[in-house]
């Protein structure tokens, strides 16, 4: 798992690559919490390079969503690979996030 960030216009774009499995999720959670603590109002998580997720990764996505809702901010996800989208569908996650087909579309919103 690799997480990087970049400010594009008014949005903070986080890019996650690789696998979000149980072995990686603690590191991911720590990085994410640190970023959220900076209080950004608009965060986009680019998942084009994310090729595996388990419930421990999903857990953290839900934490981000709850935190961003708590501060009245915007959180959206873009560029999910089909296999990850399937996991989102199975777990009802596709109904609780704002999901965009690509970063360009996500930035425009």
């Amino acid at each position, binding site marked *: 798992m690799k997480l990087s960030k970049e400010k594009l216009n008014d949005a903070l774009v986080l890019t996650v690559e690789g696998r979000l499995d149980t072995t990686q999720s603690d590191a991911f959670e720590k990085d994410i919490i640190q970023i959220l603590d900076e209080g950004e109002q608009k965060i986009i998580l680019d998942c084009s390079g994310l090729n595996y997720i388990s419930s421990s990764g999903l857990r953290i996505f*839900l934490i981000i969503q709850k935190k961003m809702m708590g501060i009245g901010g915007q959180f959206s996800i873009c560029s999910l690979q089909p296999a990850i989208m399937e996991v989102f569908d199975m777990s009802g996650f596709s109904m609780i996030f704002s999901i965009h087909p690509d970063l360009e579309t996500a930035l425009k919103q």
Partner: protein
Amino acid sequence: MKAHQISLVNKISELEKLRDTLENLCSQWSLSPAICMSVNLALEEAFTNIVNYAFDDQMPHDISMEFSYAENQLKVVIADDGKPYDPTRQTAPDISLPAKERPIGGLGVFLIKKIMDDVSYERTSNQNKLYLTKHINQ
């Protein structure tokens, strides 16, 4: 009938061995990457739960996985000597709740059942045995 067996110890880091094993088997048995990925997910959830919940002592325990593939059925039997736990009786989370009301966690067993076509459980002497089957149409 193609078959393979591995022994894992109850440590999360063993997930890497699980993944390597599964990827090798899937390529030997010509199973698609998509199937491999979703079976990996189901096994990770089952394995992680055993590591996290099955043992109260701090001792190492053996968790075995038997893989077999025949007649378009991929079967995995997971055995552990932890406390009795029957996931087939676990009630499903409500996945239609909005984000605010969704609890954090509680998806692992649910995903196992979604991915595998058949899940059954047996307690034999001091072992939990979980039988997982996936139909492969290819």
